[in-house]
């Protein structure tokens, strides 16, 4: 028999209560895995998309929205003149409802711009020119919309032909409906408006020069903000809000788990007052009693963490296959996130055990003889 046997036996005294506490903490951790995994995946997915387009610097006005605010395309002309700008591509990126799909990424790109170059044709053809009333669909978007080459797609009140299915090397690209910028501006009545400028810098430009370029753009056009791609989302207030909300919701769920574990451990200490007094009477040090309670609660946290991670991953997989958002989610279910979640669960366990452990350490062994 080891000390661990004593810990395990303590938890197994009340299997139903231990099980329910595990469920409580597991739900908290599952929420954390799902929400943080999805929000991180969203960020990573867009970064991969931008990288796939060969973008080094993104100019946009992210403000508090998830898609950037429109601004005048004249800003692009000013930026083009700056040193270290190799090429630019103006875009209009929107999240909108298209036919039966509640939320699709619509990516309108300047005709001839480099952002078209990463698209690999899987079937059909690319639009013939900027004015052809046609779109190409990313392969996931085609699946979600249930469209093939030759079908018609309705955007706003305009019907456009699906002329090709493409692969863009990233989920956001594959999940997009892609068309010419001028065509989209005409359809939506937003002539002269764009909301993203992708910028490429010459190969092997030092990072400090890229940063300097961003600062120059920000001085030149204060209404927009230029950032390197890896900072694109971290600088977005909207995304920061989403991230804060996902963490906030998760931590709230975890807090419920904390209270559950604390309640269980307190009950355990109350129920086992007599047993703890016996242990003290036969020579166990208070430190060992405290460790026993803390290890029990940490073990509860650990087990809850493992179950929670599995539940969270399963929930995300289910979510990914939900028709309304299929093709939009690329969750970041990394080993790092799992390890962090389990670590949080163990921390929660230990934290919840502190007060019960302190209570147990205050018990007097003489209670045993007094009966």
């Amino acid at each position, binding site marked *: *028999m080891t000390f661990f046997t004593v810990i395990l*036996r303590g938890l197994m005294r009340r299997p139903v209560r231990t099980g329910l506490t595990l469920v409580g903490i597991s739900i908290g951790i599952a929420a954390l895995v799902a929400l943080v995994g999805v929000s991180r995946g969203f960020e990573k997915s867009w970064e991969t998309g931008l990288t796939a387009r060969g973008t080094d610097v993104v100019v946009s006005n992210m403000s508090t929205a998830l898609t950037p605010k429109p601004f005048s395309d004249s800003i692009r002309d000013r930026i083009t003149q700056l040193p270290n700008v190799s090429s630019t591509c103006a875009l209009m990126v929107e999240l909108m409802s298209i036919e039966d799909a509640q939320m699709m990424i619509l990516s309108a790109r300047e005709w001839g711009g480099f952002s078209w170059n990463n698209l690999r044709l899987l079937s059909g053809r690319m639009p013939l020119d900027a004015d052809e009333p046609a779109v190409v669909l990313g392969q996931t978007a085609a699946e979600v919309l249930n469209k093939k080459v030759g079908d018609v797609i309705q955007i706003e009140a305009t019907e456009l032909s699906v002329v090709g299915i493409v692969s863009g090397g990233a989920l956001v690209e594959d999940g997009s409906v892609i068309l010419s910028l001028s065509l989209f501006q005409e359809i939506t009545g937003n002539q002269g408006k764009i909301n993203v400028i992708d910028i490429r810098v010459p190969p092997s430009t030092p990072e400090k020069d890229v940063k300097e370029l961003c600062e120059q753009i920000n001085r030149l056009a204060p209404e927009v903000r230029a950032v390197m791609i890896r900072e694109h989302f971290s600088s977005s207030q909207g995304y920061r809000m989403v991230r804060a909300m996902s963490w906030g919701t998760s931590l709230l769920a975890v807090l419920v788990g904390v209270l559950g574990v604390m309640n269980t451990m307190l009950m355990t200490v109350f129920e086992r007052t007599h047993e703890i007094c016996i*242990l003290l*009477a*036969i*020579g*166990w*040090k208070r430190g060992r009693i405290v460790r026993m309670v803390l290890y029990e609660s940490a073990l509860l946290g650990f087990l809850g963490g493992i179950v929670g991670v599995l539940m969270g991953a399963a929930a995300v997989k289910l979510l990914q296959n939900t028709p309304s958002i299929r093709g939009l989610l690329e969750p970041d279910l990394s080993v790092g996130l799992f390890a962090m979640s389990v670590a949080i669960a163990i921390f929660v366990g230990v934290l919840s055990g502190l007060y019960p452990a302190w209570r147990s350490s205050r018990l*007097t062994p003489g209670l045993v*003889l007094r009966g």
Partner: protein
Amino acid sequence: MNQISRNSAGTDAAALCIFEAIELEKEFDDGQVQALRRVSFQIATGDFVAITGPSGCGKTTLLQMLGALDRPTSGVLRYQGGSIADSPDPAAYRAREIGFIFQAFHLLPTFSALENVQIPMFETTRTRRDRRDRALALLKAVGLEKRVNHLPSMLSGGERQRVAIARSLANDPSVLLADEPTGNLDSENAEIVLDLIVKIHKEHQMTVVLVTHDMDIARRASRVLRMKDGQIVSDISPAGT
């Protein structure tokens, strides 16, 4: 190993006198209850002392003091010359110097007999195998080698008390403190348990302090302290020693 710091004057006396109480007093409820009143005595190393008296006379309180389960309100109680109340580590004293036997056995219900005996050994440096081997040997010594994997609920009262005796010997203590060890047993099992305690006392020259209200049991001891109203009213040696 002695966990009680000894004073220099007490060192020689400690060889003969294992416990020494001087003017020991214990009050409860802000002095409304006086459990012990100026109790003084000495117990020699290897002695078998029975403490008797009616309920509420202070026997159990005195046993608690001897086992560092409680502190006196005033007075001095020494173990091998060192004050028990001033011990920096009473848990270590209880773990290594004292073996407890309780009237209600106080075994841990979710642990087998073998595991119950191993519990006190967590406070020693014994390995897992050592703990198990010693627990098996102790259970064999009390005649329970065939009941090692039984939970307390599957054992009779006498068997439970024998497991408790094995547990009390786990860390090879110098003193056995027994609080009404036969109080919950029928006469047959009471006799077995009492014989076992006497045997341990004789074979290991272990100091035994046994609390009982039964004079027949007390007569098995080499010395009987009779208490009344928190005081020792008589100190006799039944065998005439």
